[in-house]
C-alpha cells in the first residue's frame, strides 16, 4: 500500500514535469499550457505568462527551482515551494458496519490466511504555496490549481 501523502507528492512532481515537457515539445508557443492559462494577465507590470515561464521552467541547477515538500519546511519558506500538509482527516462516508472486511477478504500464503481490513478516510490535504514574492505565490497557486 502506498501512503496518500506520497501519492499526492508524486502527482504534483509529475504535474510540474508535465508543464515543462508540454512547453518544450509544443509546436508553437500558443499551444502551450502556460500560454493558454496565463497569457494576457498583467498587473502593475507583472506579466504572469512571462513570469510563469521563468518559474515553472527552472532547471535543477537553479536554487529557486519550484520544489515539493512533505510537511511544512520552514527552511524553504522563502523559496518557491509547495508544502503538502494535513489539516484534517476524518472517517470516510463509504465504510461498512463492524470491522469492515475488505472486498478482497484474505491474503493466502501456504496454510496461513491473513484477513484484510479496510477503512476509508475523508482527508483534506493543503498544498501550501510559499515564496518570498506575493505575485510569484499567486502564480504558482494558479498553475497548481489549473494544472
Amino acid at each position, binding site marked *: 500500500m502506498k501512503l496518500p501523502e506520497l*501519492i499526492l507528492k508524486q*502527482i504534483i512532481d509529475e504535474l510540474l514535469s508535465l508543464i515543462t515537457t508540454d512547453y518544450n515539445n509544443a509546436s508553437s508557443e500558443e499551444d502551450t499550457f502556460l500560454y493558454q492559462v496565463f497569457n494576457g494577465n498583467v498587473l502593475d507590470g507583472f506579466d504572469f505568462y512571462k513570469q510563469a515561464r521563468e518559474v515553472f521552467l527552472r532547471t535543477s541547477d537553479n536554487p529557486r527551482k519550484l520544489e515539493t515538500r512533505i510537511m511544512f519546511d520552514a527552511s524553504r519558506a522563502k523559496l518557491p515551494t509547495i508544502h503538502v500538509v494535513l489539516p484534517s482527516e476524518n472517517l470516510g462516508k463509504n465504510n461498512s458496519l463492524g470491522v469492515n472486511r475488505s472486498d478482497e477478504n484474505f491474503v493466502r500464503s501456504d*496454510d*496461513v490466511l491473513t484477513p484484510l481490513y*479496510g477503512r476509508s478516510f475523508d482527508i483534506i490535504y493543503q498544498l*501550501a504555496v*510559499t515564496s518570498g514574492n506575493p505575485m510569484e505565490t499567486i502564480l504558482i497557486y494558479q498553475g497548481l490549481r489549473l494544472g
Partner: protein
Amino acid sequence: MIAISDSLEYNGLRLPNLSGNDLNIDDGLMPNVYTRALSVEVDFEFKVPSLIKHTMLNKIIFEKPETYEK
C-alpha cells in the same frame, strides 16, 4: 489539479474537491513569506492486513475409535 484530476482518481485519491485560501504566517516568525493554500479533499481507502493470522484448514482425518464394535 484540475487538468490532472484523473490521475488523482486512478491513484486512489477518490472524489477530489478543491478549495483555497490565503495563509497568514506570523510575520515575526517568518518575515516576508507569502503563502496561499490549495485544499484538496479526497476519499482514500486504507487496506491493511490483520496482525492475527489464521491457519487454514487443509485436511480432515476420520479415525475409527478403538472401542468401536460392529
